[in-house]
């Protein structure tokens, strides 16, 4: 009864030819072992905790975020808006994670103010920037942004967008650009990150989602794509009896 270990593929070779003396340190070294592979392993994404509480935003910050989302992408005749799509939750999880910390950004100082062509020059990574900016926005709006009427909220957002409102320290235009970018991300990213709930953003525009084979459809000029959108975690039809 001979048996073969399934995972006998190696990851490492210490080749006598390559180093007569063993490496003092352990680098990963590959010699002649072919393309390495490990079963049951992949760099798959981590779905965020979707339960309904904020990990990062304080109640006041959440109020701003929800109000801003409701104006930036409102719920209307065209379809659900950012609020319904879960964008505030998306933003919260982003700020609570590596993105909020700016862990892949170059954050070393000094941090002189830069020119527009030099892009982001704040000493704050995104999470801190949101924290400071929201506080300053609420103060600039009177008591709070969330307390304004919808029309006034729209007007305020337009001023932020144009940079015509002076915040205490934060560059209003830069913050608005980041906020809008993040809201778009939340509205259109895969639902596993907390936004685009029910793939509502994708449904609104007709984007079929996480698909990988359009060969049968490419040459059907002008014909609507017949399948519903699917996400990395799948769609309702993947489960027996699941209704779309």
């Amino acid at each position, binding site marked *: 009864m001979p048996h073969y270990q399934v995972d006998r593929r190696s990851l490492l070779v210490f080749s006598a030819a390559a180093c*007569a003396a063993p490496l003092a340190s352990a*680098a*990963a070294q590959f010699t*002649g072992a072919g393309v390495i592979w490990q079963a049951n392993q992949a760099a798959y994404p981590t779905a965020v905790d979707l339960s309904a509480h904020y990990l990062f935003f304080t109640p006041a910050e959440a109020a701003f975020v929800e109000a801003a989302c409701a104006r930036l992408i409102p719920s209307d005749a065209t379809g659900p808006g950012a609020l319904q799509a879960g964008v505030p939750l998306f933003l919260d999880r982003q700020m609570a994670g590596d993105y909020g910390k700016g862990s892949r950004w170059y954050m070393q100082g000094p941090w002189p103010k830069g*020119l527009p*062509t030099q892009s982001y020059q704040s000493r704050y990574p995104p999470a801190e920037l949101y924290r400071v900016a929201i506080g300053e926005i609420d103060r600039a709006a009177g008591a709070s942004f969330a307390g304004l009427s919808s029309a006034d909220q729209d007007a305020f957002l337009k001023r932020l967008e144009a940079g015509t409102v002076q915040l205490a320290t934060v560059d209003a235009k830069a913050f608005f650009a980041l906020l809008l970018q993040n809201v778009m991300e939340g509205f259109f*990213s895969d639902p596993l990150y907390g936004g685009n709930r029910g793939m509502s953003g994708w449904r609104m525009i007709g984007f079929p989602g996480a698909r990988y084979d*359009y060969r049968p*459809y490419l040459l059907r000029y002008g*014909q609507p794509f017949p399948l519903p959108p699917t996400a990395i975690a799948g769609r309702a039809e993947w489960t027996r009896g699941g209704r779309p």
Partner: protein
Amino acid sequence: MTQTLPSVEVLVIGFGWTGAIIAQELAEAGLEVLALERGQWRDTPTDFATTFAQDELRYYWRHDLFERLNHDSLTFRNNASQTALPMRRLGSFLPGSSVGGGGVHWNGQVWRFLPSDFVARSHNLARYGKAYVPDDMTIQDWGVIYDELEPHYDKFEYLCGVSGKAGNLKGVIQPGGDPFEGPRAREYPNPPLDMPYAPTLFAKAAAGLGRHPFPHPAANASRAYTNPLGVQLGQCTYCGFCEKFGCGNYSKASAQTTILPVLMRKKNFTLRTESEVLRIEKAADGRSVTGVTYVDAQGQEVVQPAELVILTAFPLQNVRLMLVSGIGAPYDPATGKGVVGKNYTYQMMSSVNVFFEDKLLNPFMGAGALGMMLNDFNGDNFDHSGLGFIGGGYVGLMQTGARPIETHPTPEGTPAWGSEWKKAIARDYLKTATISTHGAVMARRGSYLDLDPTYKDVLGRPLLRMTFDFSDNEHRMSDYLTDRAAEIARAMGPREIKLNRRKGPYDITPYQTTHNTGGAIMGTDPASSAVNTYLQSWDAPNLFVIGGSAFPQNPGYNPMGTVGALAYRTAEAIKTRYLKATRQPLAPA
């Protein structure tokens, strides 16, 4: 206590596309080759699988496959009157990282430069005179001509299984191909990809205006393909997650899909990952290199001697390593002297959105190099008299996918948010296409690379400093191309169009291309180039610097086809000539 390892015959710094090409060629020739890569191993089924590759947030916006700036970045300014500040988050360009480098996330757009591109200085001076090539425009002839590169272009195209239609076979113009291209010896290895609706509308309109559209040459395989190394690639499925993403079904050419299956089986090739080269070491007399010092995964410094060192770390790192290692004279823009860092160039992009009332285009289906293109306005394919610029670029309607965070174009005057915005994209998303222009950038005295005086990387080395801006030449060229694109757009019969001109100084914020070129340029004179025609360093004959860093200026095409061809030409020179006379220059100064 720094450990010194036994010497190796060949040391390759950086294991991306170019590193894999050169390592395969030299290992196949029997040399003992060691590649050092500062990143990690990564491969298709575990790192870019079809189960999770379709993640726009993670790959496009959180930059999961690209260089992490917290580890190393660069500083940027438009000109010397400004203070360069760090690139704190990625934007304009997206350098690769780890095994396979940028080859993992590129689109697969593979071009040959025009014969006239290689002699841009002499050609344009002869035809248009000094008014068009002012002193400030420091363009140079390459020191290699198209005919010398042709067999190497062919080799790279067959390695990748490029899908395309030849336009010029041995001097005979072929219908359906690019009539402006230089002559090629044989057809592409694979037929063109299937063409979706929008590019065919573009081609029809363009042909109606007398232009010459043809399918984009694509390193996305139009059919399952076995390359000359015996490596198998799958068929592209038009998934629309190409550029910025790893390919999940082996259909986009990369080191992983074209070379590594063969190279990683060779007993005379070793890859050492998590090994970051700190500097290249020079001999005491400074006239050759002795190897490198690198930092391993534990942070220990290790000395790795080598007889032959090949630098393939992408143009930006190539130049930075030469500067921190003191190889070659650094360029001084004030005097114009020195060579390392000079003639840094880029690409100038613009686009025209085309909004249809009634045509369902399904733009979400796409491939990295899928589209109908035309080179009527590239290089010197047209008469520039009276236009006030030299160079040009391709114009084409590409369909590479329409990931929604990135791609939701709206007509002129539409707000960027709110109900009106929603209404516009819900109406237009499936019925919008975009024509793009991809223009050349001429070298200028004031656009260069050097080391930053203030900011450092995680290892304490100075960051590279980039001083760069577009000049009037580029602005006029880009406006011209945009206008030509708009003509075709209108002829397509849309509801409306929107022109997106490239205005103002070069801005590092929005993504444009990762075609950072120059800085260690090739040439025939060591006073004005860093490497010779075989990319051999004038200062150290046992050092070769391969990559887009060799371009004296950047023509109006994507660089990788030419980078691959140069790599193969250098490999051939090493195998057939250098090894017979090691440490000798392969070209006269």
